[in-house]
């Protein structure tokens, strides 16, 4: 038995000659010059234009919070480019890491602009010149590099099936499930576990370092246990403490215990 779907299609296709308006509409739609456009390119240009426009907005704005917002939009458009290219994972990553990371920037912007001098940033003309030269040279370098790759000039290679994120994850834990290119040596099939681990440990070190820097500073007020210790009778140690005020002798060890934490 054929599905309902197929029967519907058959019915309407047989009916089409009987209903001239529908047929003419369809023909008109197909004949529109818009029909021949490569929509992939159009969407690419749209997202790329948005990304570039908001990037210029970041430079042109003079308010830190607005800059951060334009940066978010610019990075979001870049994520759109990734989604357009079928790289869902990279696109979601872009949203998660870059756009989410800009959130912290935004928060700092909000906190900084509480003070008057940073509400409106007006760089001096020499700064503008300097950054323009630096930016233009970087841009020209990137453009020449991009246009020197022949494969990137023409249209795309056509529709390729959107890859799944699973091979990516498997490769990160050391198992390559994709087909290696021909001529790869046997050792070339290993995944990326070592770089992955190095990056993880690196990030862990950064986290620990940040927590160390941001830790609560040394206490001014004695902790309850110190107060308890100082309330205890300390007569036997008192002479030793006066003899060794630097607190590194045998008696000083006890006094250091008593006054611990200071």
């Amino acid at each position: 038995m054929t599905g309902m779907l197929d029967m519907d299609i058959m019915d309407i296709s047989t009916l089409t000659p009987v209903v001239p308006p529908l047929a003419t509409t369809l023909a008109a739609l197909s004949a529109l010059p818009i029909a021949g456009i490569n929509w992939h390119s159009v969407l690419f240009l749209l997202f790329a234009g948005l990304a570039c426009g908001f990037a210029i907005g970041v430079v042109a704005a003079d308010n830190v919070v607005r800059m951060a917002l334009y940066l978010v939009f610019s990075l979001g458009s870049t994520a759109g480019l990734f989604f357009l290219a079928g790289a869902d994972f990279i696109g979601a990553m872009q949203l998660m890491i870059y756009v989410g990371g800009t959130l912290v920037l935004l928060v700092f912007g909000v906190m900084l602009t509480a003070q008057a001098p940073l509400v409106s940033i007006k760089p001096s003309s020499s700064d503008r010149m300097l950054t323009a030269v630096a930016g233009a040279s970087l841009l020209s370098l990137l453009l020449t590099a991009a246009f020197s790759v022949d494969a990137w000039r023409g249209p795309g290679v056509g529709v390729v099936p959107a890859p799944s994120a699973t091979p990516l994850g498997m490769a990160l834990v050391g198992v390559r499930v994709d087909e290696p290119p021909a001529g790869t040596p046997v050792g070339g099939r290993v995944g990326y576990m070592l770089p992955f681990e190095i990056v993880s440990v690196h990030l862990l070190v950064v986290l620990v370092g940040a927590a160390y820097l941001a830790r609560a500073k040394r206490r001014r007020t004695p902790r309850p246990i110190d107060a308890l210790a100082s309330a205890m009778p300390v007569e036997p140690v008192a002479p030793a403490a006066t003899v060794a005020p630097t607190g590194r002798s045998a008696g000083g060890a006890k006094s250091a215990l008593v006054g611990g934490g200071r």
Partner: protein
Amino acid sequence: MAEFLIGLGLPGWVAWSIAALVAAVLLLNVIAGGALVFIWAERKIAARIQDRLGPTRTGGRFGWLQSLADGIKLLAKEDLMPEGADGLLFRLAPYVSFCASFCAFIALPFAFDVVGQRLNVGVFFVVAVLGLEVFGVILAGYASASKWSLFGAMREAAQVVSYEVPLGMCVVVPVMLAGTMDLVTIGEKQAGWMSSWYLFHDPFTFIIFWVYVTCAVASVNRAPFDLAEAESELVAGFHTEYSGLRWSFFFMAEYGSMFLVSGLAAVLFLGGWNGPVPVARLLGFSDGTGESAAYVVRLVGLANLVGKATLGVLFMMWIRWTLPRLRIDQVMTTCLKYCTPIAAVMFAGAMFWQLFLPGGLFPGWARPAGEIREGWLEGPGGLPVAASPAEDRSSTVTGGESVERAGLAKRSPR
């Protein structure tokens, strides 16, 4: 849908546009219509919990039309903007919030293959996009030029860094069990009896579900985590200065996000669109493509998922009107000191459970058919081989070829 329209003879771009438009309008209606119903429900539930009656007059005995009346009132309200406000950001903020909430709906499946856009990394996409909603809150708080709003925004910023970490860890567990981030596949893997839901997969997933609930409530700014709003401390927090339609956009975003995190919980832990009893499967129907009955099965699945998500939203309302608001340091303590370690331990526990007891306590007892990893199968000699997408799709849909459990868990560590 687009293929169907192309089959009708429409040119491709018209077909794709219409298909996209239909999905977008439907999702928009889910948010807007859902907000209407949920606001009414919230009023009634709040009233009942506080021993009141709630709306009783507008639209009959139960006040059915109360939300509609509210909506008309909001439309008629004067649109105000404070004098020192940053006009652009002030106007933009509600839409940023709303768009983030709306975009996340694109990847949420409502039944098998009833999804705006089936993404290979659906879970990740939803979590990433949902995190963008915070932008609207912080922008609104900053642009309002009001101390209350700024306080709300700063609290939200502090809250966001505390709940994002455990939320991500909770979401990872079902992903690990299913071996894919595709929400449709995750839901399909829990087909069968209620016991195959990931909530009941093992004790660790049961606990981590409640950690997820905690973090999800924090992520949608609902009491006891509504610090950004805190109407008894900060007037109305980040939306103090908003009125009229802009204000209602914030609320639509909030209710949309509530529905979204509940739907995500339903797909990840509560079996998605699979009911507690697999009626369709017992009757011999499947929700695969190409069968007329599949549409009915999917409709039932849709009702299942919406019902579960609605239950989640009602649960959030229940705790909102039951628990007092936490202080900001208590929020951070809850999320970072308790939820994160619990989630980490449960993640490790679920991993080891999968490693040593992959069949559950009672092997062969109501485990879902079609245990197959997405995209690749286990080849001879334990080496993974890439599977073609078509092969994968068909076997996932029908669940016919019950491939030997090709889990990460059984792979020898290298």
